[in-house]
């Protein structure tokens, strides 16, 4: 019922939605979040490199998916997270949550990305336009977003 993947390759959001809904006429709505590498004048990112803890990542994502499925009675969910070197504009993460109605689908999608950001073992390193590299610090606002779900 849950699709969990960690991969270097890009993902196809349309194909993943089709896979989630195939043969499931009981699904009434799908919430979708796509995280993308962002760059701006204030944040001149040339690339992001994502590292993870392979033995822990998929079990951690599966636990997060199981928690959402149980809280919102999801009919399916998909978590795909990319690792390796990604450029601005490239997608990093896909969250899909399928339910009978829009409210649980949308709420579960927000929950899934909030928990993923604080409970799945990924780390981002930024490469700036000048070539300097720094590990991204965790943000208190992400902890607060995850905490609101209890």
């Amino acid at each position, binding site marked *: 019922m849950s699709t969990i993947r960690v991969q270097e390759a890009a993902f196809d959001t349309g194909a993943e939605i089709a896979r989630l809904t195939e043969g499931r006429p009981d699904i009434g709505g799908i919430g979708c979040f796509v*995280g993308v590498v962002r760059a701006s004048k204030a944040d001149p990112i040339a690339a992001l490199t*994502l*590292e*993870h*803890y392979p*033995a*822990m990542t998929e*079990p*951690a994502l599966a636990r997060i998916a199981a928690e959402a499925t149980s809280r919102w009675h999801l009919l399916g969910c998909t978590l795909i*997270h990319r690792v390796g070197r990604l450029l601005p504009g490239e997608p*990093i*993460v896909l969250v899909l949550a399928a339910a009978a109605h829009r409210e649980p689908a949308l709420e579960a999608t927000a929950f899934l*990305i909030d928990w*993923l*950001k*604080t*409970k*799945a*073992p*990924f*780390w*981002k*390193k930024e490469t700036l336009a000048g070539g300097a590299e720094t*590990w*991204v*610090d*965790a943000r208190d606002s*992400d902890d607060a977003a995850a905490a609101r779900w209890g």
Partner: protein
Amino acid sequence: MSDAHVTVLYFAWLRERVGSGEERIELPAGVRTVGTLIEHLIARNPAHAAAFENRQAVRCAVNQDFAGPDAAIGPGDEVAFFPPVTGG
């Protein structure tokens, strides 16, 4: 031959400061928790001392589950140290 070893993994800037992503550590008598393992690592190597300088910035997992400094560890366990996660 003693088999009282743990596998210790490091990720992100902890891996860079330690200079290695994985090592096998023999558990001395008295090292039975995450916190006492950190003290042991700090005492044996200056690179580890630098990596664990700000203890508040280090998170841990024992056998792939998040764990605090009081978590028990024993022979054969996998103990991972890393900064707060930043995925998504």
